[in-house]
């Protein structure tokens, strides 16, 4: 994938002023109506389902059957949430998700940084071939290996155990590639050479020089890893089989497929509880996440 988007090096956010300059000011002073129509429509379509989630979650069941539909939030959220807590051990499930996503985020950043640093700055036989292997695996649909993965987890004894989610999630090819680029871009060779001359070993160079210099890229990767693990559904659905070990996503599916809770208000309340943490993270760090995606587009 490396040279598929081999445009310019990641100066993704820089060319904006250049673009502004090329516009002839006399003619393009105002943003056209077409722009506003498209933007208005996309923003509405992007946010309405989320708004709708809050509306349904906070109304009672009968309100959902209203024609025309209710469009404003009600006051029934707490009652709906209580039913969620009756049906599944939701706090436990939230805790499980937090443990899994948190460990994966930290682990993925660490192991990706290790490998990325080695690929960017250390010379060793087979380096290029191994890097090609890493990049090549980025598009392999590993989800299809689910049956042997399950057999393997059974042998290890991790069925219904959060380790089954955490350990395989600790590394990704994307993470290694991402960190290699980050080290390459932000850590000049001269700095490493200087440290070497002062007698620093590779491990010290990694901890004291490489890690601090890639902190921004590392936090973006950590965010991606956290969100990916938080939202993961297929694998947790397969390896977890009792409500105490469920992550929130599996608990939500449980809530949906349980015969005695076909209540959309309750389902949506569960979804609100599971989604709000990510929405809060996104409100605080959305700018970095957007930047990370746009940066990554140019890198990969």
């Amino acid at each position, binding site marked *: 994938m490396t040279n598929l988007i081999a445009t310019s090096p990641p100066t993704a956010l820089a*060319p904006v002023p250049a673009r502004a300059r090329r516009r002839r000011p006399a003619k393009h002073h105002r943003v056209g109506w077409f722009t506003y129509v498209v933007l208005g429509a996309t923003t509405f379509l992007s946010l309405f389902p989320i708004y709708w989630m809050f509306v349904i979650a906070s109304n009672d069941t009968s309100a959902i059957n209203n024609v025309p539909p209710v469009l404003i939030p009600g006051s029934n959220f707490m009652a709906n949430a209580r039913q969620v807590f009756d049906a599944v051990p939701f706090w436990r499930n939230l805790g499980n998700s937090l443990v899994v996503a948190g460990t994966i985020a930290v682990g993925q950043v660490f192991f990706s940084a290790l490998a990325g640093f*080695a690929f960017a700055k250390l010379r060793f036989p087979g380096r290029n071939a191994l890097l090609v292997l890493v990049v090549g695996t980025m598009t392999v649909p590993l989800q299809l290996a*689910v049956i042997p993965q399950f057999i393997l987890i059974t042998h290890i004894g991790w069925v219904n155990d959060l380790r089954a989610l955490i350990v395989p999630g600790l590394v990704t090819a994307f993470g290694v590639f991402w960190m290699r680029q980050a080290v390459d871009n932000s850590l000049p060779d001269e700095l490493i050479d200087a440290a070497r001359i002062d007698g620093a070993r590779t491990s010290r160079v990694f901890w004291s020089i490489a890690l601090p210099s890639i902190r921004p890229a590392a936090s973006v990767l950590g965010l991606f890893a956290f969100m990916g693990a938080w939202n993961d559904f297929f694998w947790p659905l397969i390896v977890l089989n009792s409500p105490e070990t469920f992550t929130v996503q599996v608990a939500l599916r449980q809530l949906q497929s349980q015969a005695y809770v076909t209540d959309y208000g309750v389902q949506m309340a569960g979804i609100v509880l599971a989604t709000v943490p990510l929405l809060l993270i996104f409100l605080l760090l959305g700018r970095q996440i957007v930047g990370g995606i746009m940066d990554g587009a140019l890198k990969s």
Partner: protein
Amino acid sequence: MPSDTSTVTLNGVVGSPRRRRRRASLTPYLYIAPFFLVFGVFGLFPLLYTAFISLWDWNPIGDKTFIGFQNYTELFADPRFWNAAGNTLSIWAISTIPQLIAAIVMAAVLNNALLRAKTAFRMAVLVPNITSVVAIGVIFTQLFGRDYGMINWLLQSVGLDRIDWQAGRLSSQIAVSMMVMWRWTGYNALIYLAAMQSIPSSLYEAAAIDGANKVRQFLSVTIPQLRPTIIFTAIISTIGGLQVFAEPLLFGGQGGTTGGASRQFQTLALFLYEQGFRNFKFGYGSAIAWALFVIIAIATVVNLKLSSRIASE
């Protein structure tokens, strides 16, 4: 080690004493080992092992019998397989093609340099992407509900008939595709936007001097320059789109595993889940997985050929 006696090699490895150098030559492998170890054990090995299991009649709590290619002959004679394969391809087409076109238009609009609140708009279009697929499944299942769904209410209020979205083959696949589209359009738009911003402005200036208007510039400068990005997103969306699983499962509600009463929206990934983890036919499930793997590989190659031709025109 006193620095005056050591020499800095070309590699930047400090290496007068031999011992030091041998050390340095082992260290890099230790740094990349965790990735290859975990990836090999939980990724690559299971993927290859799928091919092995597919040659067995493999019951997780019972017997395992080697049956050669029997799972495959059975699979290719199984109308449920062809049904799921057809559904997968049509859901992929309904969701991916309009999605990428919409994403390019969105990106072009977001690329307007005079736009205010840029970051806010970019964040807004990314909200669907950080929403979990389970949440999307439940929300859209409600929106597409037959009796009280918002979409049917809208249809009725403009004088159209209500649709039983889940019952029909095309209608159910449109609903499932809408979930996929909603989740990924903004994300792809940001990728296109990043690529658009790296197009040199001199190209637009040249086009403007030649008298090209904005639409013309978009078609003859932006689109050709986006070519590698279009290929990239088409491939990524294809690999993901052919593995769609959670959306149809959740859209089907309690009976989601079959993808509707008459399997009208069961995808191959869902069929794999049904056979492997509901009917516990590991061998048969592995044959499905391997078939899907081949389909994805073929689709990727076709995509690569097709999109590079379209983009070069």
